[in-house]
């Protein structure tokens, strides 16, 4: 297999509130010998809120990000579910509406860029599954996570709307019974935990305006994993991570029950299994302490 190479759209949290996610992404890419070219020119995707205010602006900015991946001639890899959804949704709309694409390109042309539609946009999770292969991960595992019950938390914006999501990767995912993250846990030697909330919402996007709803959803998710004897949770989304890792106190108050679990980024879980050090994976940056390694 020739060396895998992608254009990496980090998103904002990897640069700010989840530094450990950036660290572990790079550590895992190195272990897997995947080359990631960081799109340092990329802007924020608008995080599913900018389009509520200004849809066209959101399209232009996201198209600009993709245009930079196209310049490299590479598939764009995202490491945040919401970046993935916003970028893939922009791509879908522009690829299916020539008039809209022309309007967006008129603006991009002013700064010497063009959106062509030539780059795929996929989340790192699916790039690993589709292009690298879980069998190969399995072979590379040096510290199997066999003593752990691990609860996968998929995050809405990687699995819904499924019609759009399944354009972004080869391995189909059913939002009512997703398997990708479970398969990854198994490949890392861990025991995957089945629980009702694994494909549900963490509440992140309504945290400021609807704190009670958001905290209840977070609480339900952690409680669901705890009730199935999970030792920790794992998620491909840094926004879910922020909610589950830092908001357990509000979540406990909202559902009237103490809930708290360590929550790992998908990249950290792979890194642990592949023998990366805890420093490389940034495990000290967690609010819900990672006390099992």
């Amino acid at each position, binding site marked *: 297999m020739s060396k895998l190479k992608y254009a990496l759209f980090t998103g*904002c*949290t990897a*640069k*700010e*509130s989840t*530094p450990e996610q950036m660290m572990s992404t790079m550590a895992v890419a190195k272990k897997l010998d995947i080359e990631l070219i960081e799109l*340092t*020119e*990329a*802007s*924020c995707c*608008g*995080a*599913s*809120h*900018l*389009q*509520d*205010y*200004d*849809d*066209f*602006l959101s399209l*232009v*900015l996201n198209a*600009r990000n993709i245009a930079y991946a196209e310049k490299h001639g590479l598939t764009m890899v995202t490491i945040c579910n919401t970046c993935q959804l916003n970028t893939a949704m922009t791509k879908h709309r522009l690829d299916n509406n020539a008039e809209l694409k022309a309007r967006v390109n008129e*603006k*991009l042309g*002013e*700064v010497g*860029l063009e959106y062509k539609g030539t780059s795929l946009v996929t989340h790192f999770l699916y790039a690993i599954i589709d292009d690298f292969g879980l069998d190969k991960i399995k072979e590379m595992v040096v510290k199997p996570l066999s003593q752990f019950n691990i609860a996968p938390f998929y995050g*809405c*914006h990687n699995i*819904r*709307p*499924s019609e759009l999501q399944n354009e972004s990767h080869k391995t189909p995912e*059913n939002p*009512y*019974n997703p398997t990708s993250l479970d398969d990854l846990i198994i490949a890392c030697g861990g025991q995957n935990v089945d629980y*009702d909330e694994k494909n*549900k*919402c963490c*509440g*992140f*996007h*309504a945290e*400021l*305006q*609807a704190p*009670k*709803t*958001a905290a209840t*959803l977070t609480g339900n998710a952690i409680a669901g994993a705890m009730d199935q004897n999970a030792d920790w949770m794992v998620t491909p989304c840094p926004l879910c991570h922020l909610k589950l890792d*830092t*908001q357990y*106190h509000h979540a406990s108050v909202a559902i009237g029950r103490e809930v708290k679990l360590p929550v790992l980024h998908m990249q950290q879980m792979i890194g642990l299994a592949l023998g990366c050090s805890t420093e490389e994976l940034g495990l*000290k*940056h*967690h*609010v819900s302490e990672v006390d099992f390694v």
Partner: protein
Amino acid sequence: MDNNSITTKDVTFKVFRFNSETDYLPMYKEYKMEVTSEEVVLDILDRIKWDIDGSFSYRRSCRHGICGACAIQVNGKATLACKVNLHSLTETFGDELIIEPQSTKRAVKDMIIDKSDFWEKHAQVKPYLDSHIEEHPEMECMVSIEENDRIMEADLCIQCGACHYACPVVEINEQFIGPAAFVKAYRFEADIRDDAHIERLEECALPEQGVWDCVKCFECAEACPKEINPIEKITSLHQMIFKDKVYKNGVAERHAVGFAHSIKKHGLLDEGQLVLYSEGPSIVKHIPVALQMFKKGKIVMPWNMPKSDNLDEIQKLIKSSSTTKY
């Protein structure tokens, strides 16, 4: 179809059974059946009632996916019973299927739920054309094809309740209007003949009940059997709120606008600044969590805020491509 191509499969159904008049708790009754590749979920509901237990209760009417009566859930998936093939469900969930009403906490008898909250939410958004048409109009009220296209999709709603009862916010917050009624609101908001535009939009913009409490989980888009994509209509309502300046929820509005400000300044989102701009003085309530995050190196100080390369490009695009003002 050639009979030879019909296949069969043994499926175990765990069916929610409950009578609110006599039962304290619901139970799941097991039925093992041979199911053909031709059968839809409604066929099984019929077989249970007709062949096994006449007291089994569910709603059905058209059998053509247009009345919305038979909406239930199978393994948590919103399902219009008359439309969904059983073998396709077993491909997703295996050979054991859990048949439940749309909302178990609203169950009256078996699959039948009390849907009154659904209808109350509809009533709240004036689900009709409010048009002051003269008694003796002198000309037609013309709707162009393009104007009609904007409402066509939303008009296809059969009010089955699939999206409403799939919505996690409806489950938690009783005031939340919910995706189905928002689709209905959009249907008339986008109708050029309607005169209740601002009044209806105000109802959709209020805190707790309005569109701002949507968590953007896309459960509604996934659940809708008519592919109406309710969250897309919710997004349109958000945009109308800005266009018509129907500001009723400062925190949420500033939260959306704050992204544009931050991208203009840094290219990236300044997380701390966004919370400050959205919350104003109420930011104090976030201090305990912020302190914990700070200790773990999760807060970037304003003077260390990273910036996108070629920021001038982003700034130019914001200037040339912005279509909304706040």
